């Protein structure tokens, strides 16, 4: 429910991050009340981030939902269903494909209590394992704390953490650390074998993704390129969408959209299309 005294308006400094037509953005975004004192307003806005830093998927169907591409220097949450909720193989591939194109000269912290990440497997997604710095904390709590330490220095291109339980307060801390220091954070939701994936509260991650495997197009009898059903379930300042993506062997575009399943485009746009 939108409180009546909020004025739907987009902060001026974010306009650069979402170029193009953004009527829906403007209408869908809540902003500060007009009368807020200046110092509180500054707090709400947070420090200025590098304008327009985002990682485009180079496909208008996805970039349109994200407002130009995956925003960098923010916190993202990636999960999977069924078997992959405990093995995390699918989200790992998806993240590796994204990481391959984020600041390729800088290191990446991979923080996970379970050490079953196999670096040679990352090569096929174009990610150089030499960038990896593996951290193996004992449990979820330490994983999140280690993520914050790594994010706060802002020296890594990205910080990936594999966690099960993830509450709202922690996610806010991580998101703040991302915003202040410019590293991109990925929270890979992973549950130990036998645990049921259960969320008590939603995180404040700027995007939330949900992945499911899809049968590939067979190459003779052999499995073809991996295919995933990728659902963007939440995108702050954007809109959710669902696609079928394929991990291609092209290094510059490791993810290729095969088909758009659902694009939760806002009313005005649909109206325009019809008209």
């Amino acid at each position, binding site marked *: 429910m939108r409180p009546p005294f909020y004025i739907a308006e987009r902060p001026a400094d974010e306009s650069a991050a979402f170029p193009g037509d953004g009527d829906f953005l403007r209408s869908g975004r809540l902003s500060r009340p007009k009368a807020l004192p200046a110092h509180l307003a500054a707090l709400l806005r947070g420090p200025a981030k590098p304008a327009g830093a985002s990682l485009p998927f180079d496909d208008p169907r996805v970039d349109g939902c994200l407002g130009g591409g995956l925003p960098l220097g923010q916190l993202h949450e990636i999960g999977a269903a069924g078997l992959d909720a405990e093995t995390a193989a699918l989200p790992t591939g998806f993240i590796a494909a994204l990481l391959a194109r984020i600041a390729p000269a800088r290191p990446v912290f991979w923080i996970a209590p379970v050490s079953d990440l196999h670096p040679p497997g990352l090569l096929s997604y174009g990610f150089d394992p030499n960038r990896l710095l593996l*951290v193996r904390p004992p449990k979820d709590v330490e994983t999140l704390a280690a993520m914050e330490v790594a994010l706060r*220095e802002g020296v*890594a291109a990205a910080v990936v953490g594999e966690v099960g339980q993830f509450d709202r307060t922690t996610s806010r801390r991580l998101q703040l650390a991302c915003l202040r220091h410019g590293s991109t954070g990925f929270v890979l939701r992973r549950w130990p074998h036998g645990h049921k994936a259960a969320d008590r509260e939603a995180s404040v991650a700027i995007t939330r993704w949900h992945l499911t495997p899809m049968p590939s197009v067979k190459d003779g009898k052999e499995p073809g390129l991996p295919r995933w059903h990728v659902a963007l379930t939440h995108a702050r300042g954007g809109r959710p969408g669902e696609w079928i993506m394929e991990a291609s062997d092209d290094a510059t575009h490791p993810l290729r959209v095969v088909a758009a399943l659902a694009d939760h485009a806002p009313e005005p746009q649909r109206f325009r299309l019809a008209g």
Partner: protein
Amino acid sequence: MWLPHWPITRLSRSVSASPDRPLVTVETVRGVRHLVVVGMHGEAQGLSPGQTLTAARAVCPALVPVDADPVADEAALAKLATWCERYTPMAAPDPPDGLWLDITGCSAVFAREAELAHDLAIRLERNAVPCRLAIAGTSGAAWALAHAGKDRIILASGEERTALADLPVTCLRIDAGTVTGLRRLGLRTVRDLLRIPRAQITARFGALPVLRLDQALGAIEEAIDWPRPPIEWHERLAFVEPIGTPEDLRLALARLAERLYRCLAEQDKGGQRFVARFFRVDDVVPRIAVSTALPVRDPAYLHKLLCEKLDTVDPGFGIEVMGLEAETVTPLHAPQTRLADIAALDASDRLAGVVDTLANRLGADRVSRVTPYASHVPERAVRRVPPLPVKQPSWVGDPAAPRPIRLLRRPEEIEVIAPVPDDPPIRFRWRGVSHRVRAAAGPERIAAEWWRGKRSGKRPETDLIRDYYRVEDSDGARFWIFRTGLHAEDRMPRWYLHGLFG
């Protein structure tokens, strides 16, 4: 430092005794119980070591015999040596009843050596530990003077010969048999021994008496078995009043770090492992250790690392002395930077900072990098290496043999339905879930490395071969499974799941 009647001193802290009920330790030799150590009070009553317990009881019926426990004595001595580290980092127990303290250069803190000796003696006395101290230029001379000379003697180096001349030969740390032999020859003091040609002593009593003599006089160096390697980089801070609040400790650590930095910077050195010790008023010495991936000496950084662990230190009733030492010291040259490199340098410094923070918080083995290793066996193809410095061989992938993104630490056995002899399975069951195979690629045959390790004799050779298949199930999930061994008439090959593809 000599602690006369050390076992009695140790026992009197736990067993109650009084001047008329003297404590003695006894041991049983061939069924007869003998006194081993007799305390001060016991001596006053006429007891002496070596007496049988029955004879001693006749002299002094009220005595309290306790079984001798040399192991506990030695442990207590080692603990006292640790306590003495507040004076010098070089403190070693000298069983059965002595301590070595190397106070070379430490006296500067106490203005004079005499002050140090006085302080030590007073503290021990207050704790009812009788002791005799001697300071000399050689360890042999110090030992001799502590045992046979005046208490708290300080001998300037070079005067050993005159100081030792009148002492009995027992003070040379030689065994009782030799002492008896020397006495029989009328050689009672060190002066007598010095008069005789050395060759004759060696011929009769072996090399030990001459060696000890030379060591005491400083002609030969003596090595002492220090419990810890000598620390070159050590800073110490003593407080007038014991401190205990976290703010005070933090401040003291900062000062120590600053001092250590000055020492290290003077010689262009940096440390990779630092230990801070907190000497409490009781004899507990908590310590915190931090390690860094690259050599450092920056006091602010060191202070930050140490303070992260400060909450593990329990100050108890207060901390009297704090010490900070650099254990692993390597050359560290101030970097020459060009303006263009500053940004890159700063980034690598910050990376080292994150790595150190995480490694100190979680444990050094929990932060690593990976490097390729030339092995076809998948679990051996990756090596974990220390996270810094960053210089590594590059990874080369084989597109024809893709590797999974998740590799189970131990392959898990699966139940399969597979056509013989070497087709991929049609169905398999893993972790209680059945999967129908939709597409499969393989096999890729990987043999065990026969040159590594011993093979158990029971398994046939074919079991060392793994045929890997990349399979996709009807949902699209991809697995890396393998079969060990080949189909034979009497035995079925086993199937395992080893990894998962993204």
